[in-house]
């Protein structure tokens, strides 16, 4: 299916050689000089593109997994939302229809990202971050209060915190790549990182959306680790996170209650929070094989927000352990494909970007699922691809598009070097111009 280590070293060496050239130009550049870096690295693929008009070569496994998730998600969104939608909007299809529209938009953005060279993102980073900050401030000013927090714009249709998560990962991957030499310097590395994360996380935290803020901080930390932050500093970050976490647990009313409920729930699951108890009841009802899609009862009898936060419980009840484990495995596979793309990325920015994005997606997924099975305190993280919610879906699909774009560039680079890696399937196989299998074709290219 995919060729392993032997060839990967080739890919790496390719990436490394290119990196050597770009190092010089970036060394003196701080944040502003990304563009230089991008232009140079982008040049080569662009010239290559003249030979091959369009490349339909992506990490097809990832695309396949994403499509399965989307289809499964649509099924579950409808199942989990019709009752909720009816009681809130008098229309059982409202949430589902919105999800379809957002999905269409998401797919368009994803496709666009697949064909845009990810290095272009470097130019877009600063304006996009600015727009995100403006949107986050706008949320606070417009102040549409829903359930005691204002998190949305345009009557709940846009949730900028989802965009912020995506932007954080993209921006940090560019920023870390540009500064990789200075990461050990606290003043140039850790403190600006703290400022960036603090601004984004802080704006989200005062909405308040504690879960999203914590997610952004965690992503920042993980990316710092991937980018090559010093272990000392990472240790410091962990200690800092623990202290802040402890403070939140002690003094934040929502945070402390959720953690207290969680600790109660660990001892006796039936003593935990209402959401967890209902969620466990759903899993218990579902048994090994589920009650059948559409037939869950907890979703219509008070399981909190079934279309979003609790959708995994609906999956558990309707498809049983088999179905929900399948979903967990899908996310696992997605994560694995993401890391494959990261490993094979043509440069460090691509690697960091792919890894960061896939870590974000799977982190959200695992947190959401862990909450549902009483492994973590209650949070508000959506289940990517599955949960109803346009902003998250579009943001996630954009991320997928970027990762696939990275895989496309990697593939092309390898093709040029005559070493495509086999996990990638050439879509042109079906357009009958070439009908070789991957293995035979790789031989053909090599001759």
């Amino acid at each position, binding site marked *: 299916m995919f060729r392993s280590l032997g060839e990967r070293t080739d890919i790496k060496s390719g990436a490394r050689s290119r990196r050597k050239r770009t190092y010089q130009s970036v060394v003196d550049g701080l944040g502003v000089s990304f563009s230089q870096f991008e232009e140079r690295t982008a040049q080569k693929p662009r010239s290559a593109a003249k030979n091959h008009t369009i490349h339909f070569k992506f990490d097809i496994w990832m695309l396949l997994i994403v499509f399965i998730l989307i289809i499964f998600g649509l099924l579950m969104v409808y199942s989990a939302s019709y009752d909720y939608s009816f009681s809130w909007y008098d229309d059982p299809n409202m949430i589902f229809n919105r999800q379809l529209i957002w999905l269409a938009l998401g797919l368009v953005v994803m496709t666009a990202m697949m064909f845009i060279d990810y290095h272009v993102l470097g130019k877009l980073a600063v304006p996009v971050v600015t727009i995100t900050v403006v949107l986050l401030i706008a949320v606070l000013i417009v102040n549409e209060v829903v359930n005691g927090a204002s998190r949305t714009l345009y009557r709940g249709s846009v949730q900028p915190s989802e965009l912020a998560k995506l932007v954080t990962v993209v921006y940090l991957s560019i920023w870390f790549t540009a500064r990789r030499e200075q990461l050990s310097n606290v003043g140039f590395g850790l403190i600006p990182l703290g400022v960036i994360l603090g601004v984004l996380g802080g704006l989200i935290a005062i909405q308040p959306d504690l879960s999203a803020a914590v997610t952004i901080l965690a992503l920042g930390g993980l990316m710092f680790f991937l980018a090559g932050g010093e272990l000392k500093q990472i240790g410091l970050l962990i200690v800092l996170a623990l202290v802040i976490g402890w403070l939140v647990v002690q003094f934040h009313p929502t945070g402390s209650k959720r953690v207290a409920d969680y600790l109660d729930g660990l001892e006796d699951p039936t003593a935990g929070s209402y959401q967890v108890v209902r969620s466990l009841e759903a899993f218990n009802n579902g048994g090994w094989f589920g009650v059948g899609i559409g037939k869950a009862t907890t979703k219509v*009898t008070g399981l909190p927000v079934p279309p979003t936060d609790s959708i995994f419980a609906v999956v558990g009840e309707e498809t049983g352990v088999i179905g929900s484990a399948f979903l967990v495995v899908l996310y696992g596979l997605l994560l694995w494909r993401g890391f494959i793309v990261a490993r094979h990325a043509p440069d460090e920015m691509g690697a960091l970007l792919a890894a960061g994005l896939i870590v974000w997606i799977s982190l959200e997924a695992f947190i959401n699922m862990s909450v549902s099975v009483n492994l973590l305190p209650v949070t508000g993280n959506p289940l990517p691809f599955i949960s109803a919610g346009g902003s998250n879906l579009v943001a996630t699909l954009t991320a997928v598009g970027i990762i696939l774009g990275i895989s496309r560039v990697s593939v092309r680079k390898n093709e040029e070097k005559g070493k495509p890696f086999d996990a990638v399937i050439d879509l042109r196989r079906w357009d009958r111009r070439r009908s070789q299998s991957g293995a035979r074709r790789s031989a053909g290219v090599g001759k």
Partner: protein
Amino acid sequence: MKAQERSRRYSLLGTLFTVFPVIIIFQMVRIQANPDLGQKLRDMGETITNPSMTITPARGQIYDQRGHLLAGNRTVYEVGVELQDVKNPMTIAQTVSALLGVNYDYALARASLQASSTSVYALLIDNVPPEEIEKLKVVIEQMNSMYSGGKDENKPSLRGLVYYPHLGRIYPEETLASNILGFVNAEGEGYFGLEERFDSLLAGRSKKVRVPLDPNRAQELPSVPNGANLVLTIDREVQRAMEQVIDRAVAQTGSDSGTLVVLDPRTGEVMALATTPRMDLNQFWKFAQVFPKDTPFNRAITQAYEPGSVFKVLTMASALDVGAVTPETVFVDTGVIEVGGAVITNWNQGAWGPQDMQGCMQHSLNVCLAWVATQVGPEDFYRYLRNFGIGHVSGIDLAGEGSGRLKEPGDSDWYEAELATNAFGQGVAATPIQMAVAISAIANQGVMMAPQVVQAVVSEGYQHQIDQRVLSMPLKAETANKLSRLLARSLELESSDALITGYRVAGKTGTAEIPTPDGYTSNQTNASFVGWGPLDDPRFLIYVWLEKPGISPWGSVVAAPVFREAVEELVVLLNLPPDDIRRKLSSEP
């Protein structure tokens, strides 16, 4: 950083992340593999998804004998706060105090309560009529549109203020017949009168059902039959007129209270039961104000008192019936008689010389009646009183009837002197309804009918007529008629204030000193009058009791005119033609 190190970090993170799915799947399996937890979750789920709910039927309605509604139901609202939704307790307190008259500080304190797992809701006020809820609704909408959105703590907000409808008791006639009806408290329990006596019948049978929240399992709520309706023997118009009569009398005579019982001696049906004080039943929470400490809710059935001379009717009835005296028997009144060591004198301390029984009753001579009682003898005398129901509840279908007290030979506190004093209504306590029922035997040819307020119960479309019962037959018809004529004649000879033009009535006044712990030392009296008519075909019996009249202590002065006024109202309302016209009508072929 070295590429190798970077690669290692990627691998490390990737590996760490694979822990998540493994643990999640493990946990899912664990949930399934724990039967105890499963059972517990199912049990908890059952109570959450199928909460039990009590369906309370609409309380039965109460109608007067002509079908006028006396007690019914209507939708009222309770207004409260959902504590966890409250944003600004001050706005809520201001609104409810301005619109609904709730005390501001009370409302503020209630709305400021912290929501917890045990307290989520605080009631502010109940029984709010729909008109006021309409006003509240408008204000809530205005506040919502003016101040929507925002997190400013001090912004006015009515969030959390809610109102829920429920059925509440309504008494369209307000104070009318309040002493008969009783009321229903906030918890839906009947208090006093019919509401208490027939509480379970009126309330109907509530049903506990489990209501699935799952819309796919939705089922129609089982309908529960409404509580039974009651149809009374009370006539609203008669009751209203009698209440006006007694209120006027109380005001004019300066009495502490007044009670007026109207019943049909032929059937025992109570047509009116008017007494003071009365309350607006729609405001049952004012009960303690209207009825301060120890004030009976319905004096007519609860308050036993020493009836005084009206009791002589029963003494004379037993003497005539047992044959101890005849109306023509002459007693020489020397103004004093000693029985069992007690010296009895007349009301004016005078000696009235030879008097037949007619005269004894007409002048209400205590000495004479004490002698009559001795002629009857204690055994027969008390047997008659028992048969008249003295000392026992009459069994009227109202809650809280008092039994009074009749001391009898053999009781530790009975002395021989009691025979003489009981003869003119001292040393014996009876309620107005007991007296009215007992004397109705004389009006109804010796047959004493059980008093009744409810003539029919309408339950689930069926009307159950309540049987009229004979309570006892304490004397012969002949004796009863004889005594009736005797009493009618005494009224006429006395030219009493009780006489009504066109209608021949029989009756007896009564004035009783009020006993204190030291004996009959006060000047205050209970003035009573009992009368019935028309004499040859009695249709009504009226019992009047004025407590502690201020202008005159004498029953003949204060109570007799009340009887007349009552009869004058009654004959119109009952369509009773004057005696001569009636006789003419009935003699025509």
